[in-house]
């Protein structure tokens, strides 16, 4: 029964990860801790190793379709890794409730912005910028060309996203997708695909340390990856056919959930 639950949770994580470019740890970690009673560190380590699979399976499909902006991913991932290292160091001195509240408010803002953008035109405007890229959108039956706007601000926010990721031990996807979509001005599908690709690199860097600490449970990883592979395969097929507005609604729902959880957690840690 427990195996079936893990497989189901992993399938959902893979599906959601492929659809909106997040890792899926939000599904796996509670499954491991609340349903299987695992220690949170073991759960996080096992989840992180499994999330590499979500990223690899999703981004392999997106790379074939030309959705991943490799140059932008490589550039921003460098900044994210540096932010993650800084965040892990700052976590020792900064009060966690303050970080959680800040993240909660930032995610609430991102939710509102994603919803607001969903109400506007779907096709991205062609604007002057850097790291130009193009891909074929199956849902729109059109070739989409775009550039990255506000690259410096995007890089700075990616550093902050990496910092929060390192401080709170959360996956970066929930922050990366809104940054790429709202700040860099990438079409949502390109943002999801590029974020998917980046998550694998971040998760890989974190997992390598855990492997040798004995915190990863191979049997659970095997079950999780099996579920993730199936979920992500289905998710990538659905994502390329969906219209961006549907993806936005899905993304906004997950962001709102994260925001609510972070604010509640922050207030609880503060003592309220």
């Amino acid at each position, binding site marked *: 029964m427990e195996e079936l639950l893990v497989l189901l949770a992993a399938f959902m994580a893979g599906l959601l990860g492929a659809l909106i470019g997040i890792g899926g740890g939000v599904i796996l970690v509670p499954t491991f801790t609340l349903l299987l009673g695992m220690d949170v560190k073991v759960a996080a380590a096992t989840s992180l190793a499994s999330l590499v699979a979500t990223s690899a399976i999703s981004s392999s499909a997106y790379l074939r379709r030309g959705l991943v902006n*490799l140059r932008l991913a490589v550039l921003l991932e460098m900044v994210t890794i540096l932010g993650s290292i800084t965040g892990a160091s700052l976590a020792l001195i900064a009060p966690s409730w303050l970080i959680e509240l800040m993240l909660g408010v930032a995610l609430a803002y991102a939710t509102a912005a994603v919803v607001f953008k969903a109400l506007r035109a779907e096709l991205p405007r062609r604007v002057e910028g850097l790291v130009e890229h193009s891909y074929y959108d199956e849902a729109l039956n059109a070739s989409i060309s775009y550039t990255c706007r506000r690259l410096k601000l995007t890089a700075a926010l990616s550093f902050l996203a990496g910092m929060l990721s390192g401080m709170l031990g959360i996956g970066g996807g929930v922050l990366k997708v809104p940054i790429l979509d709202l700040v860099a001005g990438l079409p949502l599908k390109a943002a999801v695909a590029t974020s998917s690709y980046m998550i694998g690199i971040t998760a890989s860097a974190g997992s*390598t340390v855990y492997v040798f600490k004995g915190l990863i449970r191979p049997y659970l990883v095997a079950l999780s990856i099996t579920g993730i592979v199936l979920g992500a395969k289905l998710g990538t097929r659905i994502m390329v056919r969906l219209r961006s507005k549907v993806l936005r609604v899905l993304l906004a729902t997950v962001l709102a959930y994260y925001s609510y959880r972070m604010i509640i957690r922050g207030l609880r840690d503060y003592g309220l």
Partner: protein
Amino acid sequence: MREAIANTLYMGVLVGLAILWLGLALGSSSLSYVGVLTVVLTPPAALVLAAVHLAREGYVLYSVIALIEVAVIASSLIVGLLSP
């Protein structure tokens, strides 16, 4: 080249998963960990190919950045291996 990067990502996970299940079936924890490590090291392996791809397209700076990221992951692997 993008196809090669995509294939590396896809096959890396599938091969790692196969080794992982084989290790579990044979009751070999070291083989299981080899499977986990194969999965975990798939993105940096693909990143090396991405660096080559970017260099071929003339984006040498991006290629160097990609290789630095691979070095960072490799160093975290070494830290994990050496730390008690």
